[in-house]
């Protein structure tokens, strides 16, 4: 195997990992803060992808149009997330985890059917913005510019999350919630508001992931479930509730997918679950996971 | 060795939470068959000490000996099988089971019969449960759902659960917390009766000084995680350090 192909594989894995990180970091944040397994996360991703497909056609195939379109899509889904939190989840925080799980699962069914009703069962593929559809030459290898764009953007989002959780008041409260759930109400934090913020950010990140990947895949029914389970795997491998864990988990799973597709095409889909099982046998709470969860 | 065998010995027991030391170099020897009270102001480390003894927390340093065995790092379920059980400070029962089933479960647990998925509890255990319920005085309630009992009866059930496995050592975390004076008096009488009949070693933590001086034969005073004094009630009562640090400050 030549070095060029290897580089290509690694970068393709990292770009997959970039999307996984964006989506899974949202899920892990929601879980860490609220202790809710959000099955609707995949639906938010799917909505983001569909909304991008629609809005992008309204813009030129220009980079700024693309950025505008995906921000717009993600913002719209953020609002959906807020509504879901207000109307459904708020009523269930005091109840059993099972009820929360079932409620978000029911919402997932609803969103899936609504998407099917509105956009049909055919897949849509928004074009890659012109300025990102080219390739970059690195030594003897040419790499799709879009890969680099995704990796760069994921790094940017990681940085933004870091600033948010370390430098901003509400972000710090979120981290405090992840650290010690019980303590939170006693130190005078508005927990309800915090939950809404966490859920909104989660929805936003999921939709952002969906919107970003849309030009690369065909957007159709069923993408909600596959990303949901994949981001579960990423979060579990990295350690639930841990953003740094999501980075590591996303890189590992992204690489496993990219190399799996080449060397064990038969088993490529199963590869990531094997990785999950192996990690869990060695570290039951994931690579960076903590005792309490 | 001849008369007073140590039931429980604690050497240099320490527990830190980050920079905070909740239990600090505690030494304590509890003789077989005695009632030992651990007292101290709020935050003195009584509950942490109890959690260390029952295996709900791990010690940072120090040793705990039960009979001849070192029990450091053992989990609560293992300690129950070594003859050390506990009644919790807040009522800690199985609310949707009946009173009788609560005690049966405790008996099954400690006799390691709970993995028998083919066997019912059996008559012997059912009868033993009834005896324990009779002992703590709530036999008439045996078929009621535990969650709907009156507070005092729930406390009695809590005691029954802890007593069911015939422990050698019984830990009581604030047994009269939240009780009316009448209920308190009743439960002191009950504890004395149980102690006399079952010849147990009892370690209790308590705020109510009437209860402490009415029951305990030995008292350990804990302040800021350290043992301030240790001895018979009369000694402790007249210890000037204890008076200034604790007893003096709390005139009820």
């Amino acid at each position: 195997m030549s070095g060029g192909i290897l580089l290509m594989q690694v970068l393709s894995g990292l770009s997959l990992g970039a999307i996984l990180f964006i989506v899974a970091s949202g899920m892990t944040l929601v879980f860490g803060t609220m202790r809710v397994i959000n099955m609707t996360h995949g639906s938010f991703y799917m909505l983001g992808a569909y909304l991008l497909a629609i809005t992008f056609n309204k813009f030129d195939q220009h980079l700024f149009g693309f950025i505008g379109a995906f921000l717009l899509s993600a913002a719209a889904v953020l609002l959906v997330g807020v509504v879901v939190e207000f109307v459904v989840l708020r009523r269930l925080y005091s109840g059993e985890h099972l009820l929360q799980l079932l409620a978000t699962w029911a919402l997932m069914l609803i969103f899936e059917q609504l998407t099917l009703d509105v956009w049909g069962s055919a897949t849509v593929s928004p074009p890659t913005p012109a300025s990102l559809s080219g390739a970059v030459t690195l030594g003897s290898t040419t790499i799709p510019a879009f890969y680099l764009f995704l990796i760069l953007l994921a790094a940017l989002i990681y940085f933004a999350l870091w600033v948010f959780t370390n430098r901003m008041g509400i972000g710090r409260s979120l981290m405090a919630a992840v650290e010690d759930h019980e303590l939170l109400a006693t130190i005078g934090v508005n927990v309800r508001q915090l939950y809404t913020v966490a859920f909104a950010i989660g929805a936003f990140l999921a939709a952002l992931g969906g919107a970003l990947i849309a030009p690369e895949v065909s957007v159709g029914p069923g993408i909600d479930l596959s990303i949901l389970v994949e981001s579960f795997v990423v979060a579990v491998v990295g350690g639930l509730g841990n953003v740094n864990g999501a980075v590591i988990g996303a890189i590992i799973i992204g690489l496993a997918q990219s190399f799996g597709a080449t060397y064990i095409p038969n088993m490529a889909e199963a590869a990531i679950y094997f990785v999950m099982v192996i990690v869990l046998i060695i570290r039951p709470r994931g690579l960076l996971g903590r005792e309490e969860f | 060795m001849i008369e007073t065998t140590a039931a429980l010995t604690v050497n240099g027991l320490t527990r830190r939470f980050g920079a905070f030391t909740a239990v600090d170099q505690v030494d304590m020897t509890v003789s077989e068959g005695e009632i030992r009270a651990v007292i101290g102001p709020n935050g003195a480390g009584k509950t942490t000490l109890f959690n260390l003894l029952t295996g709900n927390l791990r010690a940072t340093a120090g040793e705990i000996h039960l009979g001849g065995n070192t029990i450091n790092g053992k989990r609560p379920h293992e300690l129950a099988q070594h003859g050390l059980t506990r009644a919790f400070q807040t009522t800690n029962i199985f609310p949707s089971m009946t009173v009788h089933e609560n005690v049966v479960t405790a008996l099954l647990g400690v006799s390691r019969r709970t993995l028998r998925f083919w066997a019912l509890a059996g008559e012997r255990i059912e009868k033993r449960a009834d005896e324990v319920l009779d002992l703590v005085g709530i036999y008439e309630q045996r078929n009621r759902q535990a969650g709907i009992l009156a507070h005092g009866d729930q406390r009695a059930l809590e005691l029954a659960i802890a007593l069911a496995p015939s422990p050698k050592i019984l830990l009581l975390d604030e047994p009269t917390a939240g009780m009316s004076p009448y209920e308190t008096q009743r439960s002191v009488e009950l504890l004395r009766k149980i102690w006399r009949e079952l010849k147990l070693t009892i370690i209790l933590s308590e705020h109510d000084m009437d209860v402490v001086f009415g029951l305990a034969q030995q008292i350990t005073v804990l302040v800021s995680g350290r043992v301030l004094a240790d001895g018979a009630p009369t000694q402790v009562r007249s210890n000037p350090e204890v008076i200034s640090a604790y007893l003096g400050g709390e005139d009820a």
Partner: protein
Amino acid sequence: MQPDVRTTLVTPPRRTRNISIVVVAVAALIVLALGPLVLSASLQFLMLTMIVYALFAVATNFLVGFSGLLSFGQAVFFGFGAYTAALLWTHGVPFWVGFIAAPFMAALVAAFVAVVSLRTSRLYFALLTLGFSQLAYEICDALYNFTGGETGIPGINIPNALSGNMANFEFVLLVAAVAALALYWVRRSSFGMALQAIRENPTRAEAVGIHIYWHHVLAYVIAGLVCGLAGVLYVVYQQQVSPSLLDWTTSGEPVLMAVLGGMGMYLGPAVGSFIYLFLQNYVGQFTVQWPLLVGAAVLILVIVYPRGFVGGLADAFGWIRRRLGAREMVAGEGSSP
């Protein structure tokens, strides 16, 4: 002191001997057994589906409702039981060998999943079961030479003695009923009491000497065994298998049936299975919006009335009984319950 709201939500007080429930269950069984005499072939088929899913749902609820273990991956064992039986039978293994071996294979897989994923907390566990169910699906898909991939395995032969309409129906019903009864026995055993104790108050359960981890592992294995058996029964009446058995939605269905019927009652999930499949068959015919309806129904149920259908019936009876009791008290004859 208030009883713990969360636990009373799912579990009504246990009554040691409740003859009326036994009578209702036996009567229902007799009515079901008469099915083949009166029902058309298609209705008989629907009824068989209901019975098999009822067992599947009852076994799943043994974990989710009774033990408090949120397993969202029970399809793994249902599908594994079905596929193992199908593969054994198509490769010439005698019927009874396959019939017995397949559920135990499912239990073996359950043991592995449990040992690995129960080392963490409850929520983590829920995610892991989901991951394992997806793994099973992908493996089945990848081994298409062996499992038939997306088409599955059609045309599985079962012994002539069992392939007649009547015999087939009664056999499936009998096995399901015996299995449900056995699981009920387990629930009432020492082990069952310990499981209930762990769910209601894990700290207390540990303090009386119950080792939570191994109890949960065993519960998971037993549920896996029964789910596997349900899978084998599926093959007995369907005589085909397809990967949708391992699908993630197949894992969700028994949980949904349990909630619909009532998780607090042993046979609640069975009732839920009948209601769900009945509606799916009749309402599902008229609309393509079935998933939307299911989602909306679950949402309403979860928010408004999480005790489910049988829980609702029990509440209604309790209410009537209390009213009657109150009247007796007024008459001066009643004693406190």
